[in-house]
C-alpha cells in the first residue's frame, strides 16, 4: 500500500483553564490517503474542530498540542516552522469553515479574496489569477462568474458564499481539504447541492478531504472512511460501509438508533436515546469517557481501554465485540 498523505498518531490537545486543564483531544490516530474522504462525526464539543485546526496549525496560542506524529506527505507538522506551515496552508492543505456568512471578509470583493488565495503561493499575474478564479467559480456552479468577482460577500446568498469558499479552497489545487461542518448552516436542499459539489470536485481533482460534521446522514453519503469522535477520542474508525453496516462501539450504535430513519423507524414510535450528558474533560480523565452513558458499563470501563478490531476498522471498548452481543445482536 502507498504511504498515507496524512498520518496522525497520538494527537493530544490540552487547554489550560482556570479550573484545571481541559483535555479536549486525547490521543487520536488516523491515516488519510490521497483522494480519500474521511468524515469525523461527533457531538458538539467532542473536539472535532480542534482536531482540524491542529492539523492546520491554526490553534489558539494557549492550546498545547502534542503528537507522536503528524506527517503530511513527508513533512512533520509538529516540527514545521511557522514559515513552512504558512507555505502549506492554502497551497497544499485548504480549509473550509462552517459559517459561510462570516468566513469571507466583508471588506473585500470575492474576486480580491480568491485572487489573494492564489497569489499568496504562486507568483502569477493578477490577470492569470483572475482567470483561474473565474474558472473555479464556474466549476463550483456559479453563473456569470466574471461579474461576480466584483461583488462583496454580503451580496451573495449563503449557498453561493459557501461555493465561493470552496472555490477559494481549490485555487491552489490543494492535496487535502479540511471542511469543518461546511453545510450545517445551510438549508437541506442547499446542503445536498454543496455536498454533491464537494464530493464531485474531490473525486475529479483527486483531493483528499477531511469532512467534519455531526450529521450521520452526511457521513454515510460522503465518507470513504468514518471516525466517530466522543469526548476527545476517536472511539471508532473504519470504512463507511463497515461502520454503518456493523457499528461496533456502543456509542456509534446509540447514535444510529437516535435518528429517525424514514422507512426504518416506526412513525411516531419511540426513538433510541443516549441518556445523560458528555462528561467534563477538565482534570484527569480515566477509562472510557462513555461509560457514564453506556448501558453496558462495568467496573472495567474505568480502567485502561484496549483498542479492538482490525487495522481498518478499530474501536475502543472493554468488550471485544463492543457489547453487541449484550444488545442481542449477532456479534
Amino acid at each position, binding site marked *: 500500500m502507498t504511504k498515507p498523505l496524512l498520518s496522525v498518531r497520538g494527537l493530544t490537545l490540552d487547554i489550560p483553564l482556570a479550573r484545571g486543564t481541559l483535555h479536549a483531544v486525547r490521543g487520536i490516530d488516523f491515516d488519510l490517503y490521497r483522494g480519500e474522504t474521511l468524515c469525523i462525526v461527533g457531538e458538539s464539543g467532542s473536539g472535532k474542530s480542534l482536531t482540524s485546526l491542529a492539523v492546520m496549525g491554526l490553534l489558539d496560542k494557549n492550546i498545547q498540542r502534542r503528537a507522536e506524529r503528524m506527517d503530511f506527505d513527508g513533512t512533520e507538522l509538529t516540527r514545521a516552522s511557522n514559515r513552512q506551515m504558512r507555505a502549506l496552508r492554502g497551497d497544499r492543505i485548504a480549509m473550509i469553515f462552517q459559517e459561510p456568512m462570516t468566513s469571507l471578509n466583508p471588506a473585500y470583493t470575492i474576486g480580491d479574496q480568491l485572487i489573494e488565495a492564489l497569489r499568496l503561493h504562486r507568483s502569477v499575474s493578477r490577470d492569470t489569477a483572475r482567470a483561474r478564479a473565474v474558472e473555479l467559480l464556474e466549476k463550483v456552479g456559479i453563473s456569470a462568474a466574471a461579474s461576480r468577482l466584483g461583488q462583496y460577500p454580503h451580496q451573495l446568498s449563503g449557498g453561493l458564499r459557501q461555493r465561493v469558499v470552496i472555490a477559494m479552497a481549490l485555487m491552489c489545487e490543494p492535496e487535502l481539504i479540511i471542511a469543518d461542518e461546511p453545510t450545517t448552516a445551510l438549508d437541506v436542499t442547499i446542503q445536498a447541492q454543496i455536498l*454533491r459539489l464537494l464530493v464531485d470536485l474531490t473525486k475529479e481533482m483527486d483531493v483528499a478531504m477531511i469532512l467534519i460534521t455531526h450529521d450521520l446522514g452526511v457521513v454515510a*453519503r460522503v465518507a470513504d472512511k468514518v471516525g466517530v469522535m466522543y469526548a476527545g477520542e476517536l472511539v471508532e474508525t473504519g470504512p463507511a460501509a463497515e461502520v454503518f453496516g456493523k457499528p461496533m462501539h456502543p456509542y456509534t450504535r446509540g447514535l444510529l*438508533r437516535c*435518528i429517525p430513519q424514514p422507512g426504518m423507524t416506526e412513525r411516531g414510535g419511540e426513538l433510541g436515546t443516549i441518556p445523560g450528558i458528555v462528561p467534563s474533560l477538565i482534570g484527569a480523565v480515566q477509562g472510557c469517557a462513555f461509560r457514564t452513558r453506556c448501558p453496558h458499563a462495568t467496573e472495567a470501563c474505568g480502567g485502561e481501554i484496549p483498542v479492538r478490531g482490525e487495522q481498518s476498522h478499530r474501536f475502543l471498548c472493554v468488550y471485544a465485540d463492543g457489547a453487541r452481543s449484550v444488545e442481542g445482536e449477532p456479534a
Partner: protein
Amino acid sequence: MSAPVLELKNVAKTYRVKQGMFGKPKPLNAVNDVSLSLGRGEVLGLVGESGCGKSTLAKILLGLEEPTSGQVLVDGEAIGGQDRLALARRIQPIFQDPYSSLNPRKTIADIVSLPLRVHGVGDAKSRAKSVRETLELVGLPARVLNTYPSQMSGGQRQRVAIARALIMHPEIVICDEPTSALDVSVQSQILNLLNELRAEFGLTYLFISHDLAVVEHLATRVAVMYLGRIVEEADVGDLFDAPRHPYTRALLNSVLTPDPSLGVPDTQLGSAYPNPISPPSGCHFHPRCPFAETLCKTKAPRPVPRAGGHVECHLHDPDSTMYRPDFTV
C-alpha cells in the same frame, strides 16, 4: 376528523423592511395567504427552507404578531376578538434555542410558574405543587427548582421550556424547531417526550422543522412552505410516498439517511435563492424548478386539492395547459 381546533383563513403577514440603513421600506410578504386547519390531536409538520415564513406563522398563532390580513380561529372563534390571556391558555410555544428561551436571571421554579402567576392561577402553594408535577412530567427532578438555566444542559433546558408550555394545560403547542439546536442523542429524548405528552394529554402540535426525517417521524400531516405560501399540504404518508410539488420532491430528495450505499442525491434545484422582497413573478418557485415552463413565469398557480390537502402547481391543475395527471416523482 373532528372540528378543527385551530384554523387559519387566508392569513397574511407583510413586514415593511428597510433596505440598508436609510433605504425605503419595502413590503416583504413573510406569510402570504395561508389557510390551514388543525384537528384535535393532530401534529401538523411545517417544513420549508430558512426564511420561508415558518416562524412568522408561529408568531401569528401565538398572538405575538398581528396578521396583516386573514383570520385565525381557535375552536371556531376568531382570536383577534379574544383577549391575549385567553389565547395564551390554549396555545403555548416551545422555541428553538434552549439557551435563549429561558430567562437567565430567573430560577427554574420562577420560569415554570410564570404562566400561573400571569394568569393568577391558584396560590403560592398550589403553584409550587403544580410546578413540581409538571417538572416530573417532563422528566426533571424537583431539585432543579432552585437552579438557574445556565447550570443546565441544552436538553434539560428544553425540558424546562416544555414544562413551562404545558403547565397551563394548553390544547395547542407550537413547536418552532424544538430540537434543531440539540445533539442527536438529546434530540431523540425530546422527540420521545413530545410524543408521550401528546398521547397522554391529547395535545395538538404545530411542529416546525427543517429536518424532514423528524417531521416524518412525528407529524400526522405535513405542510410545505415556500416563500410565504403553503405549496403543498397532505397527510404524512401521502406526502412522503407521493410528493406532488417539485419543491416537496426536492426536499424529500435532500433527506440524507445514514445509508452509505446511497451517494449524495441530486436535488435538481438551481442554486439561486430568491429575494423575498422581490419574489419571482408567477410561480415563486419557477427559477429553481426543473419543470418550469413559460406559464410558470407569468401565472401563479392556484391551490388544487390532493389527497388529504392541496398542492399549488400548474402541473397538477386540471385547468392548466401544463396539466400532467400522471406526474409524480
